């Protein structure tokens, strides 16, 4: 039956909606700029200051994660993209138009998530591979470099891209729960920036236990070939982040199915 509204049709429609507003295009541009641009800046600084670094810094230096550091800034841009994908529908009221076209709410969220995850994964992998390769080229000759043919290195770069895609989904879930752009983005930023600061006030032994569960710490674990101290290994960190995303999404979807579509009330 070709006339039915299907998940594929919903996904195509959401893809058209995603690429036809400027905020998505801007978000993508900022993600590219932050990951690759800051990557170039950081790796260049490391190269120019390499001779002045302490022996300890040199001994623990990781050319992989240091070239991917920009992605930890780009995570905010990706978060905004994920949030706005749903909150813009509530602020403009277009969620009602969308739901009259696709009244199956489960399918609507499915379509939106597919568009968001696929585009953010492609974007994330693209910027992380680019930042890594450019970073190693900048290090070449002065700073030790890593090769993408090494299994652990390849995993780090791939997981760095996946981290961005998963965070976009997490932000989307927050947006679906809170239905307001400002509120959802504030909560998202707080979880990534404020929570670690609160952690600093905890006693040292609690701090280590607490901080490694924090999303950006998980991100650092995911993009490091060797597990940083007091942190999870790359795969464990990925699974924990996946659990966060699944949990947040489950709550958001249950709320979405139950609540009236209405404007914010």
């Amino acid at each position, binding site marked *: 039956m070709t006339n039915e509204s299907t998940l594929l049709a919903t996904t195509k429609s959401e893809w058209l909606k995603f690429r*036809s507003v400027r905020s998505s295009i801007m978000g993508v541009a900022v993600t590219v700029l932050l990951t690759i641009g800051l990557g170039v800046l950081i790796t260049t600084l490391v190269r120019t200051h390499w001779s002045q670094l302490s022996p300890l810094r040199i001994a623990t230096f990781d050319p992989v994660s240091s070239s991917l550091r920009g992605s930890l800034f780009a995570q905010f841009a990706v978060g905004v993209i994920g949030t706005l994908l749903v909150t813009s529908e509530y602020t403009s009221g277009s969620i009602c138009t969308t739901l009259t*076209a696709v009244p199956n709410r489960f399918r609507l969220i499915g379509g939106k998530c597919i568009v968001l995850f696929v585009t953010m994964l492609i974007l994330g992998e693209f910027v992380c591979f680019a930042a890594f390769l450019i970073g190693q080229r900048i290090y070449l000759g002065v700073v030790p470099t890593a090769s993408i043919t090494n299994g652990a290195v390849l995993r780090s770069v791939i997981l760095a891209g996946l981290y961005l895609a998963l965070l976009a989904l997490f932000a989307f879930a927050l947006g679906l729960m809170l239905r307001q752009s400002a509120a959802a983005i504030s909560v998202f930023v707080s979880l990534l920036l404020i929570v670690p600061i609160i952690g600093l006030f905890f006693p040292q032994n609690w701090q280590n236990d607490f901080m490694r569960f924090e999303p950006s710490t998980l991100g650092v674990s995911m993009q490091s070939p060797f597990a940083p101290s007091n942190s999870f290994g790359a795969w464990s960190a990925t699974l924990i982040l996946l659990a966060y995303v699944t949990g947040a999404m489950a709550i958001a979807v249950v709320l979405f199915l139950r609540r009236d579509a209405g404007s914010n009330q």
Partner: protein
Amino acid sequence: MIKIDHLTKRYRDTLAVDDLDFEVKPGVVTGFLGPNGSGKSTTMRIILGLDHPTKGQATVNGTRYAELKAPMREVGALLDAKAVHPGRTARNHLRALATSNQIKKSRVDEVLEFVGISAVANKKVGTYSLGMSQRLGIAGALLGDPGCLLFDEPVNGLDPEGIKWIREFFRTLANEGRTVFVSSHLMSEMAVSADEIIVIGRGRFITSGSVDDLTKNAEGTVLVRASDHDKLAALVTANHGVVHDATDEGLTIAGLSSDQIGQLSFDAGITVYELTPQRASLEEVFMDLTAGAVEYGAQKGGSRA
């Protein structure tokens, strides 16, 4: 056909819709009339599956909206014309809607042409006037060529030409055998554009019927200008009539026909200068029907204790 089946909707402590039960038939324009806040929009939102009913249900062609396979091919709706992402162009907005229901792309240009906004189809919707947004909303409702159409306060923001256009448009849709359900808080608008009217107030059903039926049953008044108003007023009251309004210009009398008043005056030796039967306007009928059913009414002279 739309069927509202003992529908009740409660938002926290307000009862927005209270046991509504009616049908909207195809082939006629059905007006959905009530003061602001009477539950019209809520009812429409429930029909479209946007809000969940507390009790009862609403169905379109026997199916709940959320279960329709290709909803836009069965129902077209315009709730809030401004409920469109302001950063998207009209054409992209309609294309996204068409894609979601597997409606062919060429249909987008057809509906844009039909509502007369082809020339601005590539402009961002945020730059549109309310009238243009209304036309875009109508274009969206027509995309799937549906047999059933819902419009919530569609004449808001339209210029006189647009209003004339939309009335003819409703008529055409109904003549094609479609179900056309149009809400308004303006009786005068419904009087010219609707065949059947359903009146609600405070979420409750008040009355329904054709425009003629509604005014026929309403009580008319008679305006009288005579030589002795005080004497006439006393006479009217004694004969079970009611004097609504007494000014130097004349008396407005209810409960007696102009024949009866003329005879009474003649018998009492009062000279009548003017005797005008006044048919209740639809607006008055509506005010009478919904009196007490207005959620946010202005109190008249603080007369209520």
